[in-house]
């Protein structure tokens, strides 16, 4: 079926089940022409359909980045959380600024997705000369995010920092120690056992890189 017909199926869907089926089919087509429709689905307040749409956008990858950045819905935090999630999974460093902003969003699901995504961008897509300043920016955002009031955001910031730490450019290699120190204090002081445990795991992994 041509992609136009698949898009039409989405507008014709009259139940949650038929919508989900239509989004899954459209997502599987991996066709850039589907991008605007998949982004629209993120705002439908239908988690199943949104998961499928994110999967489709991530599958399309880079061509979806600019439309996602341009159409980020600042009035619907559900849609925004899904878009941030898609950007985090595509890992294109053009999303850096948006993810930095999203790390202080009022909605915790947005902050959670941004924190993880900030650490795992494909830094090698950037010209070599831009890498240090971009990574420093991610680092400057993630370190304070480990003090977020919500446990799950702190947890995500640890995951983000761990990934960032393992991919630091040579100019920033001394920042690994800062990251390890941050994990150490979370491991000791965080109120939530799950966060302390994740910090402990991350500290172990990062310390191995230091040796």
């Amino acid at each position, binding site marked *: 079926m041509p992609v136009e017909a698949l898009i039409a199926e989405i507008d014709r869907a009259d139940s949650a089940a038929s919508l989900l089926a239509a989004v899954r089919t459209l997502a599987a087509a991996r066709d850039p022409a589907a991008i605007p429709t998949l982004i629209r689905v993120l705002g439908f307040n239908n988690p199943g359909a949104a998961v499928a749409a994110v999967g489709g956008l991530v599958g399309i990858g880079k061509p979806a980045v600019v439309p996602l950045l341009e159409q980020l819905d600042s009035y619907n935090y559900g849609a925004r959380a899904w878009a941030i999630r898609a950007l985090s999974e595509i890992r294109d460093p053009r999303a850096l600024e948006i993810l930095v902003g999203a790390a202080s969003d009022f909605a915790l699901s947005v902050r959670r997705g941004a924190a*993880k995504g900030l650490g795992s961008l494909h830094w090698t897509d950037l010209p070599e000369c831009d890498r240090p300043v971009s990574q420093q920016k991610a680092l400057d955002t993630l370190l304070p995010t480990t003090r977020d009031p919500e446990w*799950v955001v702190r947890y995500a910031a640890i995951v983000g920092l761990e990934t960032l730490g393992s991919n630091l450019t040579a100019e920033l290699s001394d920042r690994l120690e800062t990251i390890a120190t941050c994990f150490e204090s979370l491991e000791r002081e965080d109120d939530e*056992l799950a966060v*302390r*445990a*994740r910090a*402990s*795991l991350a500290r172990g992994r990062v310390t191995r890189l230091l040796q």
Partner: protein
Amino acid sequence: MQPSSQVDAIPAPSMTIEQAIANLKQTEDPSARYYAAWWLGRFRVRENAAIAALIDALSDDRDRSPDGGYPLRRNAAKALGKLGDDRAVSPLIDSLSCHDYYVRESAAQALEELGDARAIRPLVKLLEGGVEAAVFVPGKPHLVQPYDSVLEALGTLHATDALSDIQPFLDHPVPRVQYAASRALYQLTGDTQYGDRLVRALRERDLQLRRAALMDLGAIGYLDAAEAVSETHAENSLKLIALKGILEKNLDTDAPHLDSAIVEVMQYMDRLL
């Protein structure tokens, strides 16, 4: 138990502790009392005056809903569960015989949170008549007793003497009640067949049932469920809460030792962020 952490934004406290206690003590404005009771629980105000006023509110007769219920009593019971003060145990046990179903439900949940074994016998009494008696109240969306809350409380309170009272509820026609029984029996016996029943519930077609099973698996910390929890069709935030429960139940608080099963749980969590 309801997943409270689904709420994305939390309102800031908009009144002082003194105000809240004063609002609860006055009797002119029922809605201010109702809100104050919730507020004192939400912000964990453990002051003597707050506890005393909440216990008082458990026998309030002024605030009545159209169906004859006691909204203030419900909120007071919920708040007392959060405040962790033993003085509330015996008044909450009295609330288990209130004729408002929702007061009994809130009291059972509060007694579970307070963790006092004195509540066991009065809770078991609500199971009297077994599954045969556990029917819907005609015209109401609930059963004659808050069985799920009672069963969950008995599990948490280590009511091993109540095993034979709980067992039959595995076959109750309402899935939510079956889950509560599985959850309690797992807590009381550690037998994996009960944990596995909850894992199977993650494949139910109804999202509400999958959500309930998620919360139960998180509450009992059933390690074997981690993968199924991460894969069930539900919101990532709920799956993360359930996995957090599993992770924490299997960690030693003093010296978290990260064995491979624990690391695996964290890997599932990482993927859901």
